[in-house]
């Protein structure tokens, strides 16, 4: 199916843009957008940010990856629209964080994508102070599951809101960085940005 099948009928790209923008405004005004998303630049590459009325639900690396949006459509709601303005508070905090001017994120978080075990792990992780690190087994012990270090690692790897929920602050005993959903290069960058030296 090509556009020519329905005729061009004098619709310019600018015209289409105006019509679509008008729709976006009205969709937002009527509260029809369940998940809003935006792309943001960062020193660790483009980020895709997505939020619901409850708060920030996803920070994804490699912002172009549409698999993230498909996943959100399947798990939360398909009423997903790009709406950078709605993610502005998150973007402002991320910018400040990457400039070293913000240590604690205050934007609300929506845990809808996190299961009960993951929630315990990430709640605890969110309390590790800026510039410090903890180990997988420390986290496991703290949530009362001392033998679940591997499960803790999996829960951290599944963190849908990295950077803001600082799973990068969990490393291996002995200083090895361990793993990171966004790749070790990013984990290293974040830890050195925070001035953390993983010595345990």
């Amino acid at each position, binding site marked *: 199916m090509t556009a020519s099948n329905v005729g061009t009928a004098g619709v310019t790209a600018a015209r289409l843009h105006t019509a679509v923008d008008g729709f976006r405004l009205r969709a937002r005004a009527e509260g029809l957008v369940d998940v809003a998303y935006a792309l943001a630049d960062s020193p660790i590459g483009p980020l895709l940010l997505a939020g619901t009325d409850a708060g920030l639900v996803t920070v994804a690396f490699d912002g172009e990856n549409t698999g993230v949006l498909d996943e959100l459509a399947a798990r939360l709601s398909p009423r997903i629209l790009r709406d950078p303005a709605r993610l502005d508070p998150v973007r402002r905090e991320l910018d400040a964080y990457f400039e070293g001017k913000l240590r604690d994120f205050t934007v609300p978080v929506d845990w809808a994508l996190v299961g009960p075990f993951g929630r315990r792990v990430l709640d605890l992780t969110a309390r590790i102070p800026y510039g410090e690190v903890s180990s997988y087994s420390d986290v496991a012990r703290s949530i009362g599951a001392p033998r679940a270090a591997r499960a803790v690692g999996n829960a951290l790897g599944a963190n*849908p809101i990295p950077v803001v929920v600082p799973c990068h602050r969990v490393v291996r005993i002995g200083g090895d960085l361990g793993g990171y959903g966004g790749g070790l290069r990013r984990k290293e960058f974040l830890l050195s940005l925070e001035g953390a030296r993983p010595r345990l």
Partner: protein
Amino acid sequence: MHVADRAPRSAHRLPPFEALLDDHAGAVLRFLVRRVGSVDAEDCFQETFLAALRAYPRLQDAQNLRGWLLTIARNKATDLQRDAARRPLLGDEAAASAATVDQPAESDGELWESVRRLPSKQRSAVAMRFVEDRSYDDIARAMSTTPDAARQNVSAGIKRLRRERA
């Protein structure tokens, strides 16, 4: 994104609505420019996509999203022309016959084809009820008739669709 347990993939999964804008907004706007003219097309376009967004999570079949959007667009155009004409029945018939000659060359699903072949009042009522998820009161207002008549149009249309597709 890394999510612990992935939702099962199915043929009925709906893509993010943003993808519908990317893929079909141009076709819908062009269709509306031809149907209602340049001046009214934009408002009709917005009404179309708003109605689609409202109904989207309940959509059962993601196979022919363009056909679905164009069905809504056609209906919005008919609403507009009816309002403009202030002669509901004639407006409806005129719009319906216009729709017949103005079909976009879409490979719509069979269901949409069947819906389109319904008599105009049944087609409008069925589309408003099931495509746009509007109430019978609302449909009655749009068709300048009573809620009972609107309900009857929908039910007659559904019966006919069932017969045709049995």
